[in-house]
């Protein structure tokens, strides 16, 4: 690990000033991903500004019936919260399907969103990687690509975003609240993470020193019937090959409304808008679900080692939606 200065401020404004003065510094919260990347010397900040105690660790009711999740809420508390489990079960399930009990206790909501890809080349400083070292090349394009992207990738980077929580939040129309040198702003969760394009080193649209302070979940009655399905190599404690977050409202056998997002397939949590459009007002049948999944995945460009992800994603979408129809009976 490279040497760094550890700093704590009395308030958020102080923390922002500290980071503004440290162009190679970064914020520290739970540290479960950052400290690991520092050990690997993938991350080499010279200043860490600890913000774990400066941002909210509470889940609060919003006047519109939604919930505000403080950025320092641990993943374990968020998954266990009775309001989340009742109103947004897909989010609780997504969190519980990720990492381990120990890691969920340390990891925060904001940090979960900002975790980096687990592409093996990104984590191995002896290999070229455009995300870690812009311009050095992508080792995965001619290497081990089994776990990598099938949608939205660029010749510069085929990494996937590893979060389960973010996939559920993408399906739930969540909104990220940030505070930075330029003031406060809100970003739809689906707009927080970027596709790699020519700048795979930038995972998100956040500027240096901009801090996630909370995530808002809007009221979404159909989310009371929602579900997260994760497919992986082990039954527990493994990243997704493919995951599906879905919420479904069916009236008289017809789909009135739906939310659908995919994980493990792209550089960002993938909101399946094409599938959603195909599903609205369609009969809630296996055929509709399959057709919608195929519409979404028509744009997929699998790599030599991960072509299995396309039928796997299709089948997981279909089975998750069928489960939700069954649950409603």
């Amino acid at each position, binding site marked *: 690990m490279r040497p760094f200065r550890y700093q704590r401020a009395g308030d958020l404004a102080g923390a922002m000033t500290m980071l503004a003065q440290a162009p190679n510094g970064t914020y520290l919260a739970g*540290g479960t991903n950052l400290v690991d990347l520092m050990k690997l010397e993938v991350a080499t900040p010279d200043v860490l500004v600890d913000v774990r105690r400066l941002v909210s660790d509470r889940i609060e009711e919003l006047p519109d019936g939604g919930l505000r999740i403080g950025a320092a809420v641990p993943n374990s508390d968020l998954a266990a919260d009775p309001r989340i489990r009742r109103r947004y079960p897909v989010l609780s399930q997504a969190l519980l399907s990720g*990492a381990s009990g*120990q890691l969920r*206790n*340390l990891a925060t909501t904001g940090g979960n969103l900002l975790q980096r890809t687990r592409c093996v080349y990104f984590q191995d400083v002896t290999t070229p990687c455009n995300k870690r070292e812009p311009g050095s090349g992508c080792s995965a394009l001619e290497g081990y690509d089994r776990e990598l992207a099938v949608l939205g990738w660029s010749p510069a980077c085929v990494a996937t975003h590893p979060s389960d929580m973010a996939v559920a939040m993408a399906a739930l129309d969540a909104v990220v609240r940030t505070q930075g040198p330029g003031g406060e702003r809100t970003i739809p969760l689906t707009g927080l993470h970027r596709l790699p394009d020519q700048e795979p080193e930038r995972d998100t649209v956040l500027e240096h020193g901009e801090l996630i302070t909370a995530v808002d979940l809007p009221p979404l009655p159909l989310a009371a019937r929602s579900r997260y399905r994760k497919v992986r190599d082990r039954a527990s404690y493994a990243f997704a090959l493919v995951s599906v977050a879905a919420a479904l409202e069916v009236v008289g056998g017809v789909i009135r409304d739906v939310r659908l997002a995919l994980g493990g397939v792209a550089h960002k949590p993938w909101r399946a808008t094409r599938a959603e459009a195909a599903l609205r007002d369609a009969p809630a049948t296996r055929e509709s679900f399959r057709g919608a999944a195929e519409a979404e995945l028509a744009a997929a460009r699998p790599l030599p080692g991960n072509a299995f992800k396309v039928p796997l994603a299709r089948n997981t979408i279909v089975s998750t939606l069928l489960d939700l129809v069954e649950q409603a009976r």
Partner: protein
Amino acid sequence: MEITLRVDGTRHRLVVDTRTTLLDALRERLGITSAKKGCDHGQCGACTVLLDGRRANSCLALAVAHQDAEIVTAAGLAAGEEPHPLQRAFIAHDAFQCGYCTPGQICSAVGMLEEVRAGWPSAVSDPDADEVVLDEAEIAERMSGNLCRCAAYVNIVPAIAEVAGR
């Protein structure tokens, strides 16, 4: 940096490099070696300790960031000469072979049983059930962050189940 750590009921003042993990501070600086270094990347659980009562990987925690926490290691679980019930159960069930992962397993199980008492669900819990039934599948899922290279799982699970059932 000069820091204070509270470990197993005792306060320690020490000067550490900011890069020192909580695990290295415990083992290398304070001589508290019950927390073990396995992978050092948060993947094996051998370094598990309780931070303010919650299980956590001490290899991913920076010592400077956890000065105000109450840290409990497996060595601090016993009440005097009386081993913790989970420690007794691990012995009774022969829930280890080499023993390297055992302190982490036991700290993790202590934290896990608290989580169950608090009503926390797991990935294998019935979403519609109000109470957790801690069967084998639940224990395996909840303990998946603790690897045992000797594969003593067949005895670890019953050891934990016995204590949970009391």
